[in-house]
């Protein structure tokens, strides 16, 4: 006899792992639309995705989707922060769009998809909370709040850095003044030089300029610690001042400010790999330490070894075993020759002595003529060089 269950049976673990998928599906009626998405040709999962992406236009885009087109206002478009249920507001909105389309209601198609940015505007239907901090807009991944996008150096700041460099200021001074890390200052100067070289060679095409201009609009900008004093041109200085003042006086809702997050921390210290090991060792005063002990601690050879090495480096003993004396090159005979047991040994100064010396010669006047014109293999040679056929 079966006993009534008190609690529902737990789902199979492998199913439970895909809980996220189960929670994010769209209602069944959203899949039953007549024209779109074409469920009959798709799996259920794929149909889910098509609802999420939105209707396709003739050129293959999904213009209704907020994420389809890259931003043009230096405010990134990332998924809302927060995992799980908080993020479902986005899916609820898409769900509503899908069912509206299904029921043939006046489809709320925003002419400007930016107006439904879940982070910037409160949605009257779903009450999606606005991003708590503007900094949240810089976090691209919902599950990882530790990742943020970097800031692009504004054109003003770049030109200021390059002008300072051309004036002969050191990179450290520039880094301190503008609050940009030293490595970044060096990289900016290096890239500016590269760009200038390419421009002079005519390698920058109009499409590359277009690419550059468009990509610059996707990322937040920073001007570091620039101030009015950094401008040579008075007009430029005035516009900069006005811009800063207007931003301070009227902070708008739609234009988030990332002033605080754009600054580099130049006091940060990255430990170089070599500094990772202890290079000092403290010893009691009365302990005697020799060079051998020091070498052992540092994990290198002893000092004597290096002294010997340096002496040995200049002279080397070379033996010509099995070479008859008459066959020795003339240069070798000039060097100091010692013979023991029929083996000739020569002491060669590697920095000075040369066995082979190149001298100019004419073809045909020197060397051996070989047999076949195109074939220099040994068997076709007329002249066999016996000197090299040692035992």
């Amino acid at each position, binding site marked *: 006899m079966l006993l009534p269950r008190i609690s529902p049976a737990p789902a199979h*673990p492998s199913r439970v792992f895909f809980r996220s998928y189960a929670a994010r599906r769209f209602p069944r009626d959203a899949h039953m639309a007549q024209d779109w998405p074409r469920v009959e040709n798709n799996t259920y999962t794929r149909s889910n995705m098509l609802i999420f992406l939105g209707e396709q236009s003739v050129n293959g885009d999904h213009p209704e989707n907020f994420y389809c087109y890259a931003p043009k206002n230096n405010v990134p478009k990332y998924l809302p922060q927060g995992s799980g249920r908080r993020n479902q507001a986005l899916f609820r909105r898409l769900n509503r769009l899908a069912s509206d389309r299904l029921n043939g209601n006046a489809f709320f198609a925003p002419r400007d998809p930016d107006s439904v940015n879940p982070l910037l505007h409160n949605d009257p239907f779903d009450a999606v909370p606005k991003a708590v901090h503007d900094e949240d807009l810089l976090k691209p991944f919902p599950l990882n709040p530790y*990742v943020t996008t970097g800031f692009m150096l504004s054109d003003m700041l770049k030109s200021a850095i390059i002008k300072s460099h051309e004036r002969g200021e050191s990179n450290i001074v520039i880094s301190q003044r503008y609050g940009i890390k030293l490595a970044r200052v060096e990289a900016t100067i290096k890239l500016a030089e590269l760009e200038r070289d390419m421009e002079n060679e005519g390698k920058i095409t109009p499409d590359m*300029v277009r690419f550059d201009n468009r990509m610059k609009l996707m990322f937040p900008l920073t001007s570091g610690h620039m101030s009015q004093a950094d401008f040579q041109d008075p007009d430029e200085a005035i516009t900069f001042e006005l811009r800063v003042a207007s931003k301070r006086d009227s902070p708008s809702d739609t234009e988030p400010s990332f002033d605080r997050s754009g600054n580099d921390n130049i006091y940060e210290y990255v430990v170089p790999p070599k500094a990772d090991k202890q290079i000092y060792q403290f010893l009691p005063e009365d302990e005697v330490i020799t060079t051998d002990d020091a070498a052992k601690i540092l994990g290198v050879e002893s000092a004597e070894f290096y002294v010997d090495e340096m002496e040995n480096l200049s002279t080397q003993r070379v033996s010509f075993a099995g070479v008859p004396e008459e066959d020795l090159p003339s240069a070798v005979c000039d060097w100091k020759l010692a013979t023991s047991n029929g083996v000739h040994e020569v002491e060669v100064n590697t920095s000075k002595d040369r066995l082979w010396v190149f001298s100019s010669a004419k073809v045909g006047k020197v060397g051996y003529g070989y047999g076949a014109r195109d074939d220099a293999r040994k068997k076709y040679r007329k002249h066999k060089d016996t000197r090299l056929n040692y035992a």
Partner: protein
Amino acid sequence: MPKKPSVPLKSLVRGLVRSSWHKQNFYNLAKKDDLYLAPFSEYKQRWLSKRESRAYHGDHITEHQWQGVFNPHLKSVANFNNDNPGQSTAETPIAMDLFTPLERRLDVAVFRAMFASSPKQARQFVAQGKVKVNGRRMQYCRYPLRPGDVFQVEPDCVLRAVGREKPSQEKSELVDEQQRENFRQFLAYCEEDAEDAFNEKFQPMPVDGLMDGDALYRKCRLTAIETLKKRIAEMEAEDFDRSIYEESAVSGLLTAFEEFKASNKESDTSTDDTSTAEVTPPSHIETDSLKEAYKKVFSAKAVNQDSNEFKELVKHFIEVEHGFAIAESQELLSEFLAPSSQFTPHWWYVYKKEFTGLDLPWQEGPYGLEDPDKPYFTPWTPRPFLAPFAILPHHIEISFKSCSAVYMRDPVIREGHSEVISPISLEAHQNAYRFYVRRRK
């Protein structure tokens, strides 16, 4: 040759997030939830976390290759100017240092610098010899970059990877056909209700976000004004070829003659009088000789087109038509010269091909194929669904103009921040680290 993946990389059922800009991958990222690990054994927890994190970090290299560079000693950086020492404001996600060794690889750095849509594509570029490191071609994708290295990618490859896909000839024609139809419908709407259409303005098919309708209108107006001014100057010149009006002048005269005769006949039948009605020339005929010629032609029973009088009249009518045409153009010009925010009944004439010289005024050629020799969509436009993946790395300084970048340092981990870019949660990183550190060499 790279190994073919044994599983569908962007599988919707698996739902793993890959390092790719594909829209299907974006959907997988959007629907991703926290790992649900509680009921599993410790080993399975670690294994599942490893699976998730390795799917994103270096899914193009083998497990053996990855373990060759895996470093169990994780690091973070110190802040020398800590205003409140001893009070840590945020947790240091040190486990995210796990995949730093992979970020040093050339192919991953090319992907992070946004010169390729995935590390796989970056590896392709490297293998094909499209990437230079410090001015020299580098064909090894696992080349470890050192601080200060400059790498440069062939611009055509970058524009192809980051830009829209180049449409085929058929696709381009299909899209243009649709656009032409939309535009035609809009012009018909303008003819019907010019004022409502003026408030809406024309919105072309979006390619890189919505186009500013007002901007397009203003652009067309400028072209139209220039064209009109040029045309009026041409018409006012002495040597302007006026033979184009001859046909209409002759036909106009003939119809006027027939109308005159018809009205005469009606009055004849009603009054039963044989005398013809008096011929009154129109007001624009001023000279006596022309008036007489007019009377002579219109009092005749039929028109004799070879007669001198008729020819004289036609000559005069051509002049009149010419004057009308100039006046019309000037009237249109004065309408176009009004402020662009002001409604005028003929405002939409500026979109016409005779003024813009273009079939579709917002694009200067077939859709996506303005320069068909290029391997990418022209004019260059960013690919769709680039927005959620457009992340600027902290450890690489990029110059988009020259398609080159400087690898400044290895990415670091600091308080509350990770320079290693990863959609995987910290918990999964910790578990994955435990998985690998278990089998330390």
